[in-house]
């Protein structure tokens, strides 16, 4: 065990220090903000890279270190950190993308008045996310889980002067809170049922892995489902996905970092971390698989009809997270995490590319763009690589990770295989639509004056493009190295010719149809007609899920709340006012004693003394 691993707790301190310094400096140090923020995540990245390299080279045992934080009676609460192959990989990915995004933001946010605040928030987020990954127990994970939620809230609402940004931040906070309650309940249940109330992952693993029977099947399923509810909220799975598309009101680098690559993947990470609980409950696994599968195809169809560049990518994120969930539900930890990693690269790339486009044309509506490929070469090429990776075209990374998932589905669940394949088709279709409308065709009015973004923005694009293109080769059907490394080898390697051929075929087909429709305009789809048919409307509105929630929950809740408010002001408020008045009267009486006369003070002391004596001792001497 080398010294890097043993001191891994230092990693989150880099961005935390950056955050504290930035907060202390205040807004005036604009350049310093950029430099300090970026250095914070660069330091964290370098540190985690040492650990990752060590684990790749030596594959040592998991390292766990904790100390007693608090002892209440016989219960002792320990917090600490744990380095496993999974956490070391996540650390590097999070710190890496955070660094690239901060580099990129130096260009993107250049003219923003509050850029130092922005860097402070991003640093705080990076700290929280790294802390979440390093946590060795559910309690500290939960604390960081909430912290990343707060950062997400702050950053979605970063431009709080826009009413839409405010509303989106509020929505994200409330909707994810529903999921968080599930997670909290799961933690409480675990605390209640675990031997010695242990909440650390090592003990959880040994309890559930060993089939010790310490916890009954019903409770296990309940706990697993509640954890999943937490993951649904954070990872934007159906039916709690509604916040994620709205979260695109935040600055685009944030969409790339938090709402595509890292935080939303925390749900997947959480399930991977507590995978032993899920493996004990077939019902929970099935639920995850079907929810994931449904989310994947559902969100992909919605993405097809959106016109806002970032909202398309947001629904695509929801859809891809659905893939990851499906993989986990089918028992493939490798598939889920592998797709998480590749997705982190290519989706961050796509968002940053989108940011570069928006930066240049000042609109987010793809119908107003077009013909950007000649004006923004780097953005076009890198975006194309990201799009191909997302569409699952070999040899780009998305193909390999999607292939793992589809191969597992082919072996275990034909229905989900079909769904996965269909989703892959739709994904390719909407990506070709997006790409053609934005980059090909004749330049529109908005894109006439567009220029390539500065180097500080294109450099991260290029770096990410390299990773989006090449990172898939760590796990291929003929080389299960990544899966072995990640799961220590017990997982079955799935390889299926059908999956490969199928996914390549639907991917190419999707691109081809997209080209026919939007490029050659040879096929006239309903979407291009003047009057839209009902299902296009439905897709544009995201299957009316938001409207449904408003009718089902928001309106009745508002009615209930206005009733409660009336009760509150008149009944509760009355009691509170009375209590307040009573205390304040007592205070006035007590203050009246302070009249400045020492003789009064002496008298008060004597009277008090007599009262106490009579009340306490007097009763002993009464007959």
């Amino acid at each position, binding site marked *: 065990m080398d010294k890097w691993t043993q001191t891994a707790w230092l990693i989150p301190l880099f961005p935390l220090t950056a955050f504290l310094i930035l907060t202390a400096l205040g807004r005036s140090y604009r350049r310093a903000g950029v430099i300090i923020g970026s250095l914070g995540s660069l330091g964290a990245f370098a540190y985690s890279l040492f650990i990752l390299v060590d684990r790749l080279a030596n594959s040592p045992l998991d390292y766990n270190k904790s100390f007693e934080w608090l002892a209440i009676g016989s219960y002792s609460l320990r917090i600490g950190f744990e380095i496993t192959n999974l956490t070391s990989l996540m650390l590097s990915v999070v710190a890496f993308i955070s660094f690239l995004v901060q580099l990129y933001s130096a260009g993107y946010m250049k003219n923003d008045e509050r850029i130092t605040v922005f860097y402070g928030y991003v640093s705080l987020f990076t700290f929280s996310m790294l802390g979440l990954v390093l946590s060795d127990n559910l309690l500290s994970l939960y604390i960081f889980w909430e912290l990343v939620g707060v950062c997400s809230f702050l950053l979605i609402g970063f431009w709080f002067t826009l009413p839409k940004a405010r509303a989106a931040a509020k929505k994200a906070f409330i909707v994810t809170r529903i999921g968080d309650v599930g997670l909290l309940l799961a933690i409480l249940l675990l605390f209640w049922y675990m031997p010695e109330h242990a909440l650390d992952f090592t003990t959880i693993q040994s309890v559930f892995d060993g089939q010790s029977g310490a916890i009954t099947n019903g409770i296990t399923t309940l706990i697993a489902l509640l954890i999943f509810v937490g993951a649904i909220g954070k990872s934007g799975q159906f039916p709690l996905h509604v916040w994620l598309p709205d979260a695109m009101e935040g600055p685009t680098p944030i969409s790339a970092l938090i709402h595509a690559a890292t935080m939303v993947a925390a749900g997947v990470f959480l399930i991977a971390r507590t995978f032993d609980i899920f493996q004990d409950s077939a019902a929970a696994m099935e639920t995850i698989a079907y929810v994931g599968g449904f989310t994947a195809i559902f969100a992909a169809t919605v993405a097809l009809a959106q016109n806002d560049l970032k909202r398309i990518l947001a629904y695509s994120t929801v859809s891809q997270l659905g893939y990851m969930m499906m993989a986990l539900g089918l028992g493939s930890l490798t598939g889920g995490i592998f797709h998480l990693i590749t997705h982190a690269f290519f989706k961050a790339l796509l968002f940053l590319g989108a940011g570069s486009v928006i930066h240049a044309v000042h609109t987010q509506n793809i119908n107003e763009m077009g013909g950007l490929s000649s004006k923004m070469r780097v953005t076009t090429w890198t975006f194309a690589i990201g799009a191909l990776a997302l569409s699952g075209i070999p040899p780009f990374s998305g193909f390999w990770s999607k292939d793992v998932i589809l191969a597992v589905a082919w072996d275990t669940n034909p229905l989900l295989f079909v769904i996965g394949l269909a989703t892959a088709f739709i994904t390719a279709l909407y990506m070709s639509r997006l790409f053609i409308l934005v980059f090909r065709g004749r330049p529109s009015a908005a894109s006439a004056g567009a220029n390539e973004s500065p180097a500080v923005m294109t450099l991260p694009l290029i770096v990410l493009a390299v990773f989006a293109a090449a990172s898939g080769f760590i796990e291929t059907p003929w080389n299960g190295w990544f899966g072995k490394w990640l799961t220590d080898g017990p997982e079955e390697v799935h390889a299926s010719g059908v999956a490969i051929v199928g996914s390549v075929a639907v991917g190419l087909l999707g691109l081809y149809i997209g080209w026919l429709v939007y490029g050659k305009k040879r096929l006239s789809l309903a979407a291009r007609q003047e009057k839209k048919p009902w299902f296009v409307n439905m897709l544009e509105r995201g299957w009316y899920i938001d409207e449904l929630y408003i009718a089902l929950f928001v309106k009745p809740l508002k009615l209930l709340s206005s009733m409660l408010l009336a009760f509150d002001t008149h009944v509760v408020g009355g009691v509170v006012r009375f209590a307040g008045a009573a205390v304040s009267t*007592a205070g006035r009486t007590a203050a009246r004693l302070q009249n*400045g006369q020492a003789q009064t003070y*002496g008298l008060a002391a004597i009277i*008090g003394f007599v009262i*106490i004596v009579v009340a306490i001792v007097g009763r002993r001497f009464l007959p």
Partner: protein
Amino acid sequence: MYEGVSFVPLTWTDMLYLAPEFLLAAVFIVLVLLDLLLPKRITRQTIGWLTLAGIAASLLLVLLRMLDMNEGGVSSEAIRLLANSYRIDDFASLLKIVFLTGTGLIVLLALGSIRDDEAITDRAEYYYMLLPALIGAMMMTSSGNLVTLYIGLELLSLTSYVLVGMRRKSGLSAEAAFKYVVTGGISSAMILFGMSYLYGITGSVDLGSIAAALPDALVDFKALAYVGFFFMIAGFGIKIAAAPFHAWAPDVYQGAPTPISAFLAVIAKGAALAAVFRIFYSTLLMLQDENAIVSKDIWLALLVLAAAAMLVGATAALRQKNTKRLLALSGVANAGYMLVPIGISLSVVHSSNFSEFIYYLIAYLFMTIGAFAVVSTVSRSSGNEELKSFAGMYYRAPWTAAAMVVFVLSLSGLPVSGGFFGKLFILLGAANAKAYWLVGVIVLSSVISYYFYFGFVRQMFMRSGSEQGEIRVKAETGIVIWACAAATLALGLFPGPVMEWINAIFSLQSDLMINN
């Protein structure tokens, strides 16, 4: 002269045991001479720093002695001097460390604030008079008989009277000193009167002998014993400013120089509480059967005092607009909290009273001195001590405002702060002892106190001040503020180690009880 004990002279070894006290005394005398001999043009700040050095050296000696005594494990025997009238045990040493640290911080605070206080004429006295007061407080924690204890108490009280009146050009200060002398006199009289009854029925002033003789004495003189104990409760009640004996505190704290207010709030109060702890536990715990009624009544009286202090302190502070008076009343409520672990006494299920007490005392020390330090800075810059002077402080001195938030959190008992755990331990202790009514009172008074503590926060963050100037913090005061804030946070983040350490070295039998 009482029988059974012949005069035992001090040996050289004994002198060594008493080194911390002797050192302070020596420094005191040297500084008095120095003040006389030094020419006027030499600034008296030097004397302040020398005072601080003396305190630090004494602290070191106490620490060394305590470490030396605890090498052999928990059961280390107490060192008894002068026929058991002076004891050096972990109870005394821990409290001495608290008092020395507190006084050290207060001297620093005085160094930082004195230049602006025109009303103080005798600048050197201001520092070195703290030394005899400190020796008095240390004697109170170490004394094994009533006479030594009383001498310590008077040493502390008399020097405090002088210190309160130190701002000679201020009428308020003179008035405060006068009031303090009068109420202090009443207190001393009551304590001495109570002590005389105890001596009368047991024939001894030695705490151990009193404990041994008390069961027999109670058979015939139960009423007299009540008189003795209750007069002592009332007398000490005045010293620790527990309601209804607290009325002097706001006036005196307001008139005294701010560092001296902090001294009264922390060291004078702590020493009186320590004396209550020592006297009542030594004499009353051994009572059994019939006699246990007496001890129960006395514990109950202490708890009633505690409850009254918590409620009166919290409610009276609600309408207080002067920061020093407000902190005085907060000190009344805090005296109530600290009386709780003393008053719930020992039982089979609960015996960690001392660690609860001292943990809260330590937390109280840092948050109170810190708050007084901030108050002294703010009132200096705005020229008055009203709560309003904190307005807009977030803009005028953001870091100091942040430190004040830490103190406010701690005072109101919210995490993450030392005050939170201090209060939590006391609350759990009371719950363990099944004193649920007391738990209710603690919670109620905490809730009420949120209102006035957060008055500070409201002013600092939500009001824009009329005066816009930046508040400048003197280096010495800054050190005090940040040391206190750091310690408060540390106590809130890592309560475990401190608690464990206290529990490890402290044993009721050998460190508190006095038996022959």
